[in-house]
């Protein structure tokens, strides 16, 4: 399993447009990626490809999340997702 952390850059947090951009990108991947707040148990992680699940996390601007996948070849894909999270889509 590999994981990455990212700080949410969008001012509205991870919902609405930022969530749909991120879920869309995660849905395009071969690998199944989960997302959770950093420090929260892995069981509470939700599917990164579900905008509704992302919205349910209620992650706000400036919070740190962790992305995980069991697919060890998906490092670059995770990096790409991190870049999406660390871009302010409301600017």
């Amino acid at each position: 399993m590999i994981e990455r952390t990212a700080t949410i850059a969008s001012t509205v947090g991870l919902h609405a447009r930022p969530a749909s951009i991120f879920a869309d990108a995660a849905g395009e991947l071969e690998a199944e990626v989960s997302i959770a707040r950093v420090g929260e148990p892995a069981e509470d992680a939700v599917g990164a490809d579900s905008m509704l699940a992302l919205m349910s996390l209620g992650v706000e601007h400036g919070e740190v999340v962790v992305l995980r996948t069991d697919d060890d070849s998906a490092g670059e894909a995770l990096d790409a997702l991190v870049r999406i999270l660390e871009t302010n889509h409301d600017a």
Partner: protein
Amino acid sequence: MIVKGETVQNFVGVGVFRGRVIAPIRHMPPALAEPPAGEKLASSTPPETAAATIKAAGTSVKVTFLERAARAEGAGKEVLEATALMATDPMLIKAAIKLVNAGTSPERAVWEAGETVAQMLRNLGGMMAERSHDVLDVRSRIVAVLRGVPAPEIPDAAEPFILVAEDLAPADTATLDPTKVIALVTAGGGPQSHTAIIARSLGLPAVVAAAGISALTDGELVFVDGAAGVVRTEPGAAERSAVSAWEEQSSLLTTFDGTGQLADGTLLPLLANVGGAKDAQEAAMANAQGVGLLRTEFCFLGNSTEPSHEDQVAAYQGVFEAFPGKKVVVRTLDAGADKPLPFLTDSTEPNPALGVRGYRTDLTTPGVLARQLAAIAAAAATTEAQVWVMAPMISTASEAADFAALCTAAGLRVPGVMVEVPSAALTARHILDQVEFASLGTNDLTQYAMAADRQLGPLATLNDPWQPAVLALVQATVEGAIAQAKHSASLETSLPKPVGVCGEAAADPALAVVLAGLGVSTLSMTPRALPAVAAVLRTVTLAQAQVLAQRAVGAPSAAAARELVRAGLPALADLGL
């Protein structure tokens, strides 16, 4: 009322906006019924097959939204794109498939999964809660696809058509394309219903309360006369010539030159009712002489929290900038009854129309109004518009005094009140001791004078601003203003304070003459009504208008009042109104 000829069917309802057209009808699909609780998956259908149909239905709904998003722009486009994604969202679809695997029918499974997701969003509150409506919309559409029925929305057709519905909701305006929908006919609703308001603001011929209309067949050709309130099947030569006559006459009624006046030169400024910056720009293009009613709900509706000071200032500035040097009357937030707001109003009130609404929300949630007034003052300071403010649902002089004090504290110099409650009309003299002007909201004034809910079709004839009791309340308000001026200690204020009208009544050219005759000082209406109202006002002198007004107030019924006034206004027939 249905009058059956040999084959021609004639439906008589209440005409709410003029115009004659012949076109095929399309029915608005009924609201989608909930799949019954406990509905089971057919034993012959393997769960995998049912799961696949749910996925396919979700994809088809997603495609519909993406097609729409491709035609939209800006914020609307983003909302549609996000909504498209919901239709195939793994959280929603997986939850539905789980229920199907446990033996639930696909329709019921999608219904329950959608409710679970919507509830989750509502629990999160704030901006998330607002998205719960989108989830429920997506859910309905997926269920409609599964059932093979049309989505619960205004139908799409290549050719222009007449939309037939039970009644329309405010939300339908957003998806109503006036190049496709060329007339509205509803079985329910009254002259003050949302359908009527939508028709007037879009300039669509419309007939409401046309009982029996739902029996027409989709695609059937009908004739609609929005002035006479008539819908007829099998249109022939007579109907075709009525349509061409209308087309000729209506070309005379397309523009307003920007000066409202009577035949003797008496000035009667004609203002516009607007609900935002875009409306205000259109009103300015239509030569409105100012804004007589800025509905500020546009800033608040759809928000589950109060908008920020900066957002409010920007929204008001957008309106003020369209009318430099002109009057803009801002109505403070009018939440409650048919315009609930989660952070202000209590949806469990047994009688919302008689409940905590309009100005009264300041009693239960103080602060929102003061902050709105501060934002209005800040916006006013940056533009050249003459900004007046008024509170909705004022009942007493002491409420008027409290509102005036809030305005003064915010630095707003011209406070006023809406007169919608009969008590305000009857005590206008004392109310106008406290504030600088009054504006008659005839829609609510009619509903409260007649004790008739304005949304109810069966009460349409009560909910008619031509009711002599309503006209008498208009008269009482003007008389109150005159009495206040006479008894005012200060000589310089011997002119009565202005009493305007900003309800739908002002948009009816014949009623506009009556209001002028009763002594109101401005009329504010949907900008589309300006040309016709201006044209008719110019055919009467003030003295003639006063005579017609007294006939209307003294009439035994609304129908008699209307007939007496129409008989004295030959211009109406000449203009095809």
